């Protein structure tokens, strides 16, 4: 026993030390990271972001150099705060707050304290900054917008904050990230790869040379350029037409699904969100809760589509074989339905009327009649409406379209569950849903969904997912899903009569005054009733003006949906804007200058102010 006690203790000690070493070196991996934080300083070389071009190759977005004042909090010595704040043109409170943020991030690592100096500020500061220990100027590239439109498409970039870094550890403080639009959608392509230099430091934080002679150091790789499908001239023109109006335009090339134009109004200059004024400008835009300029109406706004939806009702009715082309339906000033003889009104037009005439004259009675037949073809209205919805789904309605922009809405196409929930005991009939026939009721579409179904009609039965990307530098192809043809459930032969009807709209229908010489246009006007909750009570406001169109009739080049908030009837504003846009795109110039002048000078601001003026007001004037 006496001989072995110490031996025993020695062996136990060996085991304990082995265990401890195993724990420190193998089991707990946090030490390796701590060691790197400790001894190796990482310096990033930020890459240039990729450029953005329009479909014709004209430059939309490039870069400009920018200079950030950086601080390494623990290297600050003998700082004369007052003088330094004066030099930076910044208040003392703001400076101290930024400094404490930087300290909280890391006392040893550099954080930006004043981002994005102008060139002039840089020039005056660069000579003096070295006198203030702990501060230095870091060069970085910022966005430089060559155009003053399309802010909703291009999106904006900003410096990452701690929240973003927590969610996405690939980013470092001081780095840039795309927040909306193309900048966000194609962040990984535009971003490039940052270069890294590792610098070995001693415990006094002094640089003592490159870490491992620089074998891990990398050079920055510039981001890739991308080409968009939008047409910068069309885009600029669309925004111009929407001066003093609110709403949106979506124009698509039907044969390819390429988005030619995506306008939302009110709009703003993308250059506002660059530079030192960025955060102030952003705050202004962000807190405008009445005009909501940051809300992309073309993608996100859900409106009842109104009359353009009748084209779909007609297509479904033909596919379901519940009406023939020649059948004429009588309209007596409205559609009467239900036990108590309720009436859905219609306007003056010749009667009876067949399908093509129904489209051209937008007869409510015609479409309610055929819609009811579609639903009642099946033995329960549930089955009928689900079948109806199935057709609409094939046009990309009622769900996200899957385009390459980061925002969107599903819109709404009701199904049997919608009404089962609304009516007790599932006791409802086709007539309860009758407003759907004319694009009111439960149906909600976004402008891009309207443009998409218009493109599907123009293509006579198929559509390609709308998209913004035309070409990526060093990539041969874009995402395959933007080349795939989506077939609708409607037989192609049923589209011709609809297209003829839409053509009649221009020839002798609701948009006959909007004809473009030498171009065969097909379109459909719409007027959508509009209710809005203001100060807690729901009020009816002036109708939205809606218009969808495509042209030329054969071999269509452009399908367009235009929405003008509170624009009243379809041809009044939306139809005019659509007509001008089509002319601009197909002809490159506007011959109807009086029409153009009317739209440019027209303002709906008075209409928009009505609900907020605090006085009783009239609508649809």
């Amino acid at each position, binding site marked *: 026993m*006496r001989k072995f*006690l*110490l*031996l025993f203790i020695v062996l136990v000690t060996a085991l304990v030390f082995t265990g401890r070493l195993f724990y420190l070196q193998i089991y707990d991996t946090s030490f390796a990271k701590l060691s790197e934080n400790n001894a190796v300083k990482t310096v990033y070389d930020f890459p240039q972001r990729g450029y953005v071009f329009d479909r014709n190759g004209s430059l939309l977005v490039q870069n400009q150099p920018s200079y950030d004042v950086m601080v390494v909090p623990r290297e600050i010595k003998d700082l004369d705060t007052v003088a330094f704040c004066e030099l930076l043109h910044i208040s003392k409170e703001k400076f101290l707050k930024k400094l404490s943020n930087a300290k909280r991030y890391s006392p040893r690592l550099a954080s930006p304290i004043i981002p994005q100096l102008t060139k002039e500020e840089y020039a005056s500061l660069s000579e003096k900054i070295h006198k203030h220990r702990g501060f230095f100027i870091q060069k970085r590239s910022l966005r430089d917008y060559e155009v003053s439109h399309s802010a909703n498409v291009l999106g904006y970039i900003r410096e990452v904050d701690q929240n973003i870094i927590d969610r996405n550890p690939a980013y470092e403080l001081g780095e840039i990230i795309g927040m909306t639009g193309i900048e966000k959608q194609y962040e990984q392509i535009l971003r490039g790869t940052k270069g890294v230099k590792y610098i070995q430091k001693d415990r006094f934080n002094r640089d003592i040379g490159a870490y491992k002679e620089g074998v891990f150091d990398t050079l920055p790789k510039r981001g890739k350029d991308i080409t968009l499908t939008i047409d910068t001239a069309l885009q600029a023109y669309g925004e111009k037409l929407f001066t003093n109006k609110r709403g949106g335009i979506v124009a698509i090339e039907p044969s390819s699904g390429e988005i030619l134009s995506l306008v939302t109004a009110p709009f703003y200059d993308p250059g506002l969100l660059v530079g030192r004024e960025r955060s102030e400008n952003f705050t202004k835009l962000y807190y405008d809760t009445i005009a909501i300029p940051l809300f992309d109406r073309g993608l996100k706004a859900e409106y009842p589509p109104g009359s353009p939806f009748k084209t779909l009702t007609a297509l479904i009715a033909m596919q379901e074989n519940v009406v023939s082309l020649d059948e004429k339906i009588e309209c007596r000033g409205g559609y009467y339905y239900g036990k108590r003889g309720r009436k859905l009104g219609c306007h003056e037009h010749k009667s009876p009327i067949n399908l093509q005439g129904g489209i051209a004259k937008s007869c409510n009675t015609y479409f309610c009649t055929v819609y009811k037949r579609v639903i009642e073809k099946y033995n329960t209205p549930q089955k009928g409406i689900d079948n109806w919805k199935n057709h609409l789904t094939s046009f990309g309605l009622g769900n996200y379209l899957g385009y390459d922009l980061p925002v969107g809405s599903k819109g709404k196409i009701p199904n049997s569950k919608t009404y089962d929930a609304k009516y007790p005991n599932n006791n409802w009939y086709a007539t309860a849903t009758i407003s759907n026939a004319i694009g009111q009721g439960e149906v909600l579409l976004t402008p891009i969904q309207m443009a998409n179904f218009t493109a599907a009609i123009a293509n006579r039965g198929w559509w390609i997912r709308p998209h913004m990307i035309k070409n990526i530098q060093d990539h041969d192809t874009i995402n395959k899903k933007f080349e795939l043809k989506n077939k609708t459930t409607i037989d192609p032969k049923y589209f011709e009569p609809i297209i003829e009807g839409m053509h009649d709209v221009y020839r002798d229908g609701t948009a006959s005054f909007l004809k473009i010489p030498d171009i065969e246009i097909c379109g459909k006007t719409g007027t959508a009733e509009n209710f809005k909750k203001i100060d807690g009570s729901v009020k009816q406001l002036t109708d939205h003006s809606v218009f969808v169109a495509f042209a030329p009739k054969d071999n269509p080049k452009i399908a367009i949906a235009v929405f003008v908030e509170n624009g009243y009837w379809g041809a009044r504003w939306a139809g005019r804007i659509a007509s001008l846009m089509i002319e601009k795109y197909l002809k490159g110039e506007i011959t109807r200058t009086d029409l153009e002048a009317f739209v440019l000078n027209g303002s709906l601001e008075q209409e928009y102010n009505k609900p907020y003026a605090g006085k009783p007001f009239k609508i649809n004037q």
Partner: protein
Amino acid sequence: MAGIKNTLKFDWIIILLFLSLISIGWVNIYSASYTQSGGSFFDFSNIYTKQLLWICLSFILIVFILALEAKFYERFSSIIYLVSLITLLGLYVFGNNVNGATSWYLIGPASIQPSEFAKAATALALAKYVSDIQTNMNGFKDQLKAFLILALPAIFIIPQPDPGSALIYVAFIFPLYREGLHFVYLLLGFFAAALFVGTLVLGAPWIALIVALIATGIFVRNKKQKQKPSVFKYATIALACISFAFSVSYIFNNVFEQRHRDRFNIVLGKEIDTKGIGYNTNQSEIAIGSGGWFGKGWTQGTQTKGNFVPEQHTDYIFSTVGEEWGFIGSLGVVILFIFLIIRVLVLAEQQKSKFARIYGYSVGAILFFHFFINVGMVTGLFPTVGIPLPFFSYGGSGLWGFTILLFIFVRLDASNYYYT
């Protein structure tokens, strides 16, 4: 006499282990102390060059030690011990203050730390006294004398102040136990240590409560088994424990200085401090922990290069091993030390002379204590106690002290087969 010379066999295993440790040690000192901008290799202001010189000189020392008669060490042990005590006392008159401790004689360019040599001297004296035929390790008077032999140098060293070096003298309890000291002394030591740590972690009132409960439990159990319970005995032991706990608490809070308290609190996990006193241990753990399986490679340790671990070439040299050679490398060093200690202890057991046995056992115990406390400290298991890792840490006195300690035993062992 030629026949006798032929039977003089040195233990090559110890010598090989010694050479391995000393060369691995130097390699790590080189990595911990070289700078890229540093001057030529033969510049004697380089720490690694100086250490290489000490190593070379230690070989001369070894030849000298091995050349002497084994009997010499036994005969002159008392004188060596006395000289050693005088050099320790002399520090209070002629000593120089380095890093806050008056532990060095400065002679020209060299500095000598007598406490490093006192360990070998004490081991010789203790072996001489205990191996004396007239010494009875169960007699209280002889126990007291043996205790005095090892306590005197410790008492001289503590006020330098160098409590770490003094702590090493606790190691002598193992050879004494081996030679017949009652097990109770060991138990008492361990029990006191447990109570000590327990009091610091839980506080004296809790310890008092626990001790009282245990005592009552044993008392009740004995009463049920109809043994005659000795109330007085249990009450006395319990009271002794409780008063010990309270006095520990008192000493800790009123006698210790704040820096001592900090060191204990950090290791006991009561305080987390990575900037002040806990910095050393924390940086050392980071350095070792970042080594992974195979380490970052020789001279590639970022912690080591950045000098994040203070005193890395001396007390914290093991953290360089951990960082640059990884788990495999540090485990290798641990194994080398364990082999050396076990080899010394096993050889000590084989000694025919009681003097050589006790001396050998003391060598094993001292090496073990250094290794145990140093590696425990560097890996963050124990409080920061400034003692070197034998054969590894930079320092001429330390290296020579351990070399003398070890090679006197090699010399004694070599005579084992002809000398009775």
